[in-house]
């Protein structure tokens, strides 16, 4: 059973529809209800970093996610959900994050020919192989919508890079945790393939 974390304002329907389409069973739950009965956790999210962390902390949902991560079962963060994995974030902050992957979230730097949010289809350059990227070609396009990006403390945790005025981390991973800045659930065929690979990922022994 896959847990999808409900963080109030997110578009949960698209991620749950995608899992339904792929025939995986899921439950949409609040972070505070996350237990080890779930095999995988997906933290989706669109919204504001500080507000999302505040909501998570209110009922100690942050602790539940960290506990789940300690069991070494797979966790996926999508967009804001990926950013929450970091140590801290700048958006209406600085505010502490879940600190599952060391790094900080800051606004993308641009010049006058670039706009924020970075909206649309952009390509991802893979830095290494990963089971969740199985069957996915390097440098194909995925759908992005964001203004902030993940700055890693340790580049070893970078898995994919994307260029928008400068290179930023579009996929990060550390052990059982993987985060996507783009939206697999909105990225048609190969996005669905990523979700399928993730749901089949067995990390815990």
């Amino acid at each position: 059973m896959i847990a999808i974390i409900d963080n109030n304002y997110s578009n949960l329907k698209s991620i749950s529809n995608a899992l339904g389409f792929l025939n995986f069973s899921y439950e949409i739950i609040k972070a505070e209800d996350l237990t080890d009965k779930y095999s995988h956790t997906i933290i989706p999210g669109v919204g504001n970093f500080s507000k999302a962390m505040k909501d998570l902390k209110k009922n100690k949902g942050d602790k539940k996610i960290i506990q789940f991560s300690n069991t070494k079962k797979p966790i996926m963060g999508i967009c804001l959900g990926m950013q929450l994995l970091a140590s801290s974030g700048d958006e209406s902050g600085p505010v502490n994050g879940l600190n599952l992957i060391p790094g900080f979230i800051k606004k993308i730097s641009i010049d006058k020919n670039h706009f924020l949010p970075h909206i649309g289809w952009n390509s991802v350059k893979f830095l290494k192989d990963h089971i969740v990227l199985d069957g996915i070609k390097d440098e194909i396009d995925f759908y992005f919508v964001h203004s902030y990006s993940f700055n890693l403390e340790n580049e070893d945790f970078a898995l994919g890079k994307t260029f928008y005025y400068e290179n930023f981390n579009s996929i990060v991973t550390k052990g059982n945790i993987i985060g996507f800045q783009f939206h697999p659930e909105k990225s048609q065929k190969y996005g669905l393939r990523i979700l399928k690979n993730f749901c089949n990922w067995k990390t815990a022994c």
Partner: protein
Amino acid sequence: MLKKRIIPVQLLLKNRLVKTKKFDKFLDVGNPIKSSKIYNDSDADELIFLNIERGASTIDPLLSILEEVSKVCFMPLALGGGIKNIDDLKTLFRRGADKVIINSIVYKNYDFVEEASFLFGKQSVVVSIDAKENLQKNDYDLYSECGKKKEIISLQEHVVRCEKKGAGEIFINSIDQDGMMKGYDIELINKVAENCSLPIIACGGAGNFNHMKEAFEQTNISALACGSLFNFGDNNPIRAKSFLQNYNLNFKIVK
């Protein structure tokens, strides 16, 4: 590199797909669910649905479309028409919308843009602007309520205000070019671009792929939206992109 986008626009009237000319002369062009499936298979980058029932006071038609389309289309969905309050937005996002498109309500209350942008993120708030050329003033007039009500504010001031209040994208529609298939209003698009630094989606006037080429080459827009071009004949986003790629315009690669 960030790619240019091509977005089919689907106008809804009483649960049917329609096409208009200059915001009038409604023509039934089919079933929106079926057409969305086709667009999903033909490489569209996003889908836009607008309920154009005049005096639309409910988002119900949008919700019934969303229910079906979000099960089969795993790409960004933007919806608008008849949005009256924050609860409507909340419902749309919960049911699978990625972006909402607001128009008439903005003129009445610019703070609505600010509130929506704060609650749901700037990237999910698209402000749609319907403009009509005013030859006497050598400028554009803005209209709300599906082209029915003329607004007093100038295009320039409106765009600046929307950006300041937190709009994420501007969807600019030319009433004069709507359904005419004679090309986009390049001057209108550039006027919007000069006054904001937001991604712009331009709509109204595409009759062939050359019109799209012109618009991409002569403006700095992020996306082009098309209705008639894809509604009539056997044109689709795949064909549009393979034509445009010959002119150094880059689109997404998903194969």
